[in-house]
C-alpha cells in the first residue's frame, strides 16, 4: 500500500469519528488529595476495571473469575486465617508503601525497595545475633534502628544518581539493579556463614534469640509492629503530606511537592534537589528496611531467601493506588494485603501464586490511566 493511499485512508476513517479534543482542566486538582471524593471514586473505579481486565484474561484461560474473586474475598476478610494473614501482609506493605510515597511525590522513582527491605533483614539478623545478650527492651529498638539505617544507606546511591545521573530513569535502573546484590547476599549468608547448624541443612539461619523476637497479638502471626507502622503512617502524613487548600503545611512537604511538580522552578527558588532527593530516599529506604526488620523479628523469626516476596514492588502499586497519601495508602494496603492473603485461593485453583501480580499490574495501569481523566477533560466536537 503506498504512502498516499494509507494516509488518505486514515483521513477517511477519521471523518467517521466525531473529532474530539483533549483539553486540560483549568483548575488542576492535585492528585494528592484535595478533590478527595472525586479521587476516591476514580480509584475505586480503577480497581474495578483492573479486576474486570484480569477477569477477562482468566476467562480466556478457562478459569471462572467470579468463583475466584468470591473465594479470594471471602478467604481474605471472613476467615480467621484470612484476616490474620491480611494483617500480617499489611504490616510490611504499609510501611514500605508509605516510605515509597515520599520520593514518589518528588517524582523520584525508588523501585529498589525490595533491596532496601532485604538489607534491613540482613542488618536485623546480624544485630539480633550479635547483641543477643541485651534485654529485649534494648535489643528490639536496636535492631529496628540498625535495619532502618541499612535500608536508608542502601537507598542513598539512588538519590545521588538521580541528581547527578544524566538520563531520565537512571535512578530507576540503578535502584532496580541494587535489588540483586542483597538478594544474592541473603542466599550466600543463609547457605554459608549464617546457616543454622541444627537446621538439618535447610538454607536458613537459626531462630533469632528470644530477646529479639517481637511479641505478637495473641496466638496470631500479627506482631505488634502493626502499631508502629500505623503510627509511622500518621507521622508521615502529619509531617510531610498534610495540606491545607492544596498546599502542604510543612516546609519539607512543600519542598517535596514543588520538586515533584517542577524541579527547575524549585531549584530557581532555592530548593536543593540533592537535599530533597537524599532526604526522601533515606526515609524511603529506611522505612523499607524497617519493614524488613518487622518481617524478620516479628513474622519469620529467621532469615531465609523466602523472606523476599516482592513486597517492594507490590508497594509501588499500593502507593499509587493510595494516591501517594499515607491515609489513602492505609486503605490500599488493607486491600492489597487481602489480595495477597486471598491469593492462596489462586493456588488452590491451580495457578501459580505470581498470578496475583496480574492484579497489581492491572490496577496500577488503571490508576495511572485514571489520572488522565482527572487532569483532562475530553471535549467532543462533531467533525464538519
Amino acid at each position, binding site marked *: 500500500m503506498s504512502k498516499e493511499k494509507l494516509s488518505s485512508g486514515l483521513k477517511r476513517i477519521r471523518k467517521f469519528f466525531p473529532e474530539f479534543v483533549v483539553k486540560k482542566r483549568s483548575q488542576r486538582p492535585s492528585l494528592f488529595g484535595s478533590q478527595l471524593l472525586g479521587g476516591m471514586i476514580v480509584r475505586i473505579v480503577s480497581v474495578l476495571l483492573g479486576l474486570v481486565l484480569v477477569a477477562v*484474561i482468566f476467562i480466556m484461560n478457562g478459569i471462572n473469575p467470579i468463583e475466584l474473586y468470591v473465594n479470594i474475598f471471602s478467604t481474605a476478610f471472613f476467615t480467621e486465617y484470612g484476616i490474620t494473614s491480611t494483617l500480617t501482609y499489611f504490616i510490611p506493605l504499609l510501611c514500605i508503601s508509605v516510605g515509597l510515597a515520599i520520593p514518589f511525590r518528588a517524582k523520584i522513582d525508588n523501585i529498589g525497595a525490595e533491596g532496601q527491605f532485604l538489607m534491613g533483614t540482613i542488618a536485623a539478623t546480624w544485630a539480633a545475633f550479635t547483641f543477643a545478650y541485651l534485654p529485649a527492651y534494648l535489643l528490639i529498638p536496636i535492631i529496628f534502628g540498625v535495619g532502618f539505617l541499612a535500608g536508608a544507606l542502601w537507598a542513598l546511591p539512588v538519590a545521588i544518581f538521580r541528581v547527578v545521573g544524566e538520563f531520565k530513569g537512571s535512578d530507576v*535502573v540503578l535502584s532496580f539493579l541494587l535489588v540483586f546484590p542483597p538478594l544474592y547476599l541473603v542466599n550466600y549468608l543463609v547457605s554459608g556463614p549464617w546457616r543454622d547448624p541444627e537446621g538439618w541443612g535447610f538454607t536458613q539461619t537459626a531462630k533469632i534469640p528470644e530477646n529479639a523476637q517481637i511479641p505478637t497479638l495473641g496466638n496470631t502471626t500479627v506482631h505488634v509492629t502493626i502499631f508502629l507502622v500505623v503510627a509511622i503512617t500518621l507521622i508521615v502524613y502529619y509531617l510531610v503530606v498534610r495540606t491545607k487548600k492544596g498546599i502542604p503545611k510543612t516546609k519539607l512537604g512543600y519542598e517535596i511537592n514543588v520538586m515533584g511538580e517542577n524541579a527547575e522552578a524549585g531549584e530557581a527558588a532555592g530548593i536543593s534537589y540533592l537535599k530533597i532527593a537524599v532526604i526522601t530516599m533515606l526515609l524511603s529506604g529506611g522505612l523499607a528496611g524497617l519493614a524488613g526488620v518487622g518481617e524478620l523479628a516479628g513474622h519469620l523469626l529467621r532469615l531465609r531467601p523466602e523472606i523476599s516476596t516482592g513486597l517492594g514492588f507490590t508497594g509501588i502499586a499500593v502507593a499509587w493506588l493510595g494516591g501517594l497519601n499515607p491515609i489513602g495508602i492505609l486503605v490500599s494496603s488493607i486491600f492489597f494485603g487481602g489480595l495477597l492473603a486471598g491469593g492462596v485461593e489462586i493456588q488452590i485453583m491451580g*495457578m501459580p501464586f505470581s498470578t496475583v501480580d496480574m492484579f497489581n499490574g492491572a490496577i496500577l495501569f488503571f490508576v495511572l490511566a485514571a489520572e*488522565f481523566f482527572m487532569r483532562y477533560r475530553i471535549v467532543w466536537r462533531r467533525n464538519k
Partner: protein
Amino acid sequence: MIIEFVGSSIVAASTFFLIPTLGEVLAERSGILNLGVEGIIISSAASSFGATYITGNVAFGILVGVLLGGLLGLLHAVVSITLNRNQVVSGIALTIFGTGLSGLLGRGFVGTTIRPVEPIPIPVLSTIPIIGEILFNKDILVYISFILVPTLWILLFKTRFGIKIRTVGENPAAAYSQGVNVIMVRYACVIIGGMLCGLGGAYLTCAFNPSWTEGLTSGRGWIVIALTVVALWNPVGALAGSYIFGTFWVLQFYFQGLGISPALMSMLPYISTIMFLIAWGVLLSQSKVKRIVGAPSALCVPFEKG
C-alpha cells in the same frame, strides 16, 4: 573444543540480551522509556513455549510470542503516549502485570519439553575452524539478531524515518512543527520494540533453554534497560554491550567451579553494570561529548501538543 563450547554459549546467551536491547534502543530513541521489558519478555517466553507445545510448531510459537510482545507494548504506548502518563510507573505496571501473566500462561507447561528451534549450519562459513562453530552453526534467531544490528543501524542513522525517530526523541516539539507525526512515530517504535522483546522471550524458551518454569527470566529482562544505556542508544553498542554481558553471564558458571561462592558470582553481572552506570554518569557530567554518549533529550518526557 572448550573454546568452541564456551564461545557458543556466549553467543547463545548474548543473543537473549541483544534482541530486546535493540527493541528498547528503538523505543528510547523515540523518547519513550519502556520499563516493561521484563514483563514482556517473560510473558512472551511463556506464551511461545505454550503455543509451541500445543501446536508442535515452533515457528508458530515464536510468532505468538512476538505478537504478544507487540500487544503488551501497545498497552504501554497507549498509557505513555496518548494518555501521556508517567512512563516509569506505566512500565513498572507492565512488568508486574507481565510477570503475573506469564505464570498464568505457563501454568500448564511447567516441566514439559518441546522440540526447539534446530541449529542451521551455514554452508561454507560453518566449516571455518572455531569461529565457524561459534558463529555460524546456530539457530535462526541468532542469525536474525546478527542481521537486525546493521538493519536497525541503517534505519536509525541512514533513513528519513530514522531522522524522524531521532528528532522525536530529542525535541518532539520541533519535530511536530516540522510536520512529523510524533504520536505515530512513537507508537511504531514502542510496538516494534515490544515485538523485539517478545522475540527475545520466544528465543529464551524456544531456542536457548527449551523449558518453562515460573520466573524463568530471574530478572534478566531488567538488564536490558541498563544495557540500553551501555549501548549508548546505538545498535552497534547494543551488540557490544550484549556480548560483554553475555560473557560475564556465561563465565559466572565457570567460576563457580573454581570454588567461589555461586551467590557472589551471580552478583557480578549486576555489580559490573552498576559500576558502568556510575562511571558513565561521571563521564557524562564532565564531557562535551554528551551528544554521543548521552540519552535522547526528550526521553521520558511526556509530549503535549500545544
